[in-house]
Structures are given as structure tokens and as C-alpha cells.
């Protein structure tokens, strides 16, 4: 699951990215990894965090785009 370095933005949903990110952090915090493993995990974590951020930013943009534009309440 920790396949690193691949751009899976179009297929990974926010929930998938989020779940994997939580898993990455949990594993990093648990320790007991080789340096190479932990670096690879950290890189994957960064990637996933960016992906999550991307989705959230997109969501914000869409919210802003759908802002009420009619004058009356």
C-alpha cells in the first residue's frame, strides 16, 4: 500500500487518501522501520497530505463558486 511516487490523483478519492495518510502516520509513529522504509513512508505521507489538501481546496473553490448570488433573502 505504500507504493510511493505514483500520481494517482484522478483515481484516489479524498477518503482513500485520508485513510492511507492516517495509516502512514500510524506506522511512522510506531517506529521499528528501516531508514529507507521510513523515508519512503514519509514521502508517501507528504504526497497523500498534498492530495487531501488538493481535494479540500477544490471543495472550497466549488463552495465559493456556488455562493448565493441572488439579492433577496
Amino acid at each position, binding site marked *: 500500500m505504500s507504493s510511493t511516487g505514483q500520481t494517482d490523483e484522478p483515481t484516489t478519492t479524498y477518503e482513500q487518501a485520508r485513510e492511507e*495518510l492516517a495509516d502512514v*502516520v500510524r506506522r511512522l509513529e510506531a517506529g521499528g522501520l528501516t*531508514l529507507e522504509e521510513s*523515508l519512503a513512508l*514519509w514521502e508517501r505521507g507528504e504526497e497523500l497530505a498534498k492530495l487531501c489538501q488538493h481535494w479540500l481546496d477544490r471543495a472550497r473553490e466549488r*463552495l465559493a463558486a456556488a455562493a448565493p448570488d441572488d439579492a433577496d433573502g
Partner: protein
Amino acid sequence: MSAPSSPEAPWPVRTVARKVADWIGRLGEVWVEGQVAQLSRRGNAATVFLTLRDPVADLSVPVTCHRDIADRPGLELTEGSRVIVRARPDYYVARGSFSLRATEIRAVGLGELLARIERIRQLLAAEGLFDAVRKRPLPFAPAVVGVITGRDSAAERDVLVTARRRWPAVRFAMHNCAVQGPQAAANVIDGLRRLDADATVEVIVVARGGGSVEDLLPFSDEGLVRAIAACRTPVVTAVGHETDTTLVDHVADVRAATPTDAAHRIVPEIGEQRRLVEGLRNRARHLVTARLEQQERWLESVRTRPVLASPDRLLHGRADDFAQLRTRSRRTVVHRVEGAERDLEHARARVTALSPAATLERGYAVVQRADGALVRDPAEVGDGERLRVRVSGGRLAVVVDREDGEP
């Protein structure tokens, strides 16, 4: 009395007329019930002409009576009145016309009218025309509303004005007609058929203001009730005041208390709908925003976790490990080298201590044979053997000379 007629001997008109008049005259008196469709008093003429209509079948008969009978106090004969007439069928020979010659006219009493309506109601109820399962739901916001009402009536104004105020986009298909009197039921039925046939009409309102029981009588007409039941379009009735109940109210899909109430039933209130939509919209937005913010906080908390936020810490501990190991290894090597140096020193001291150098210094010498063996006994060496002598200052080679020394 006359001979049978034949082409050769036809009867004159007067004979035929008299024969018909005689025959009709023998019918005698009858009691007839019907509705006054037309009433005409010609000036001060002694005879009043009425048209008596059958309220269910589409037919009528002319009635004539003396003015005194029509104007009897308490009768208040008007068009639309339900009456019971005592009459004698009469053939007016001068014109060849048939009529009923009334000798007495009674208005059908209110109690009688209500009892009759009640009988019709029970009949139609037994047929299931008023069943709740037959009631159709009204469309939410109909584009076109059919309206059957009196022209320029208060009921018409109430429906149109109120409905337009509530839902400005609403359009109306109007059918203005008589809403009281003998033609009312038939006119309203015509309107229903016309509007029901119009596919754009989504709901039909039948509206009429308040009136006497007699005024509202057409709205308890059996034919009209059946016509409403037959409509494919939902029908809303608003007839009379809230306390008046006509049979159309039972059969209608929705009974409105008043024409204004009908307008409330047929179209939603636009402001209310806007507020409703706006409220839902706000709730949705708040929910989505809250969800988004919650996720943003989560992501932020994850990103600030030490393992992600400062990856150098991953290396940090490891660099320490490395430095420590390095120090330890260096220390170990140094230690070993120093130990070796100390060993060497000791060895060198011991070597120095054990060395014959000091003895040689004092003038002793060491004699060695060619193979390096020390010479400890003169008997060990032969005459002329070459030996090596080592003294403090260095080595010198010597040759054994037995003659020179004692054996």
C-alpha cells in the same frame, strides 16, 4: 263522430285539432314537479307563461296560468325556483300548441329541498363518488388553473387576485357562466368539460360566492356532481360560505371554504417557498462547510504531527546513533593502539634489561662460533677455528691458536 280520414276524404285541420284537444282534455289533472326555467309576464296580461324544466333530463314543458296563481302572496315565483304544479294538460287549438294549464303552484319548501339533496347525496355516496380514495392530490404549482365562476364576480376576483399574489407565474383558463338559476348547472358542466379537455389545465376551480340555499341549488345538481367525478383534472370547489355545504363539495378533490381559500390551496406562496428554499440552501451550505472545516482541521493536525512535519527528526536520532557508534569505534581503536604502545614500551624495557650490552660495557666479551653458538668452554673449539668476538664497541674476528695458550 267523424268518418275515418283517407286521401279522398281528408279531415280539415279544425277536426284534427279538436280531436287532439278532446283527447288531451280527457287526461285530467296531474301534479308535476320541476324548475322554473323561464317566467314571462306580458304587461298586464291575465296569463303568465312559464317554462317548467326537468332538472335531470334535458327537456321542458310550457306552463300557463292565471296571473293570480303566479302572483299568489308567499309564492315569490322566480326563475330557478323549484315548484310543484297542479295542472291540466291543455291543447290550445288556435295555435296547435301544448301546455299545462296550472291551477295551483306551490314552491318546494326549504326542508323539502334539503331532504331531496340529502337523498341524492346518499345515492351518490352509495355509489362511492365521495370516497376518500377517489380524491386526487393537487399539483404543487400549476402553470394553468381553470376557473369556472360568474363573470366579474367577487369569487372570480378573490381567486385571481389571491392566486396571482401568491404565485405570480400562474395563468388562468377562464370559463365565465351563470352560477345560479336554471342554466347554472348545465353551464358549469360545459365549463368543466371544456377545461378538462384542455391538457394545459392542471387544476380546475369552481367558485361562487355565498347565497341562499336556492341560489346554491345548482351546485347540488346530480348531473354536475357526476361531471366533477368524471373529470380527469383535479377539481377544487369553493361554493358559498364555509357553512354552506353543497354536493359538489363532497365530490371535489379539495373543498375550499371560500374562493380566497381556494387560491391558497391551488398555488403555493412564493415568498414562503423562497424562504423554504433559502433555508434549505443555507442548511446545506453550513453542513458542507462544517464538514469541510472539520476535514481541514484533521489534515492540519496530521500534517503537524512530528513524523510528518519534521522529517529531519527521522534522521536526527539516526545521526546521533551514527556519531555515537563512530565515537565508540574511534575510542576503541585508540585504546587498542595505546595498549600496544604500552606493551611495546614494556617489552623494550625488558629487552634493555636483559641485554648483555651493559656487561659488554664493563669489558666482557662474547665469543661465538661461525654458526652463532656461544663458546663457553675452550674444548668446544678447534685449533685454527675462526670465531667472532663481540665486545661493547663492536665485533672482531679471531682465529684460535692452541700453541699460544694452555690446552
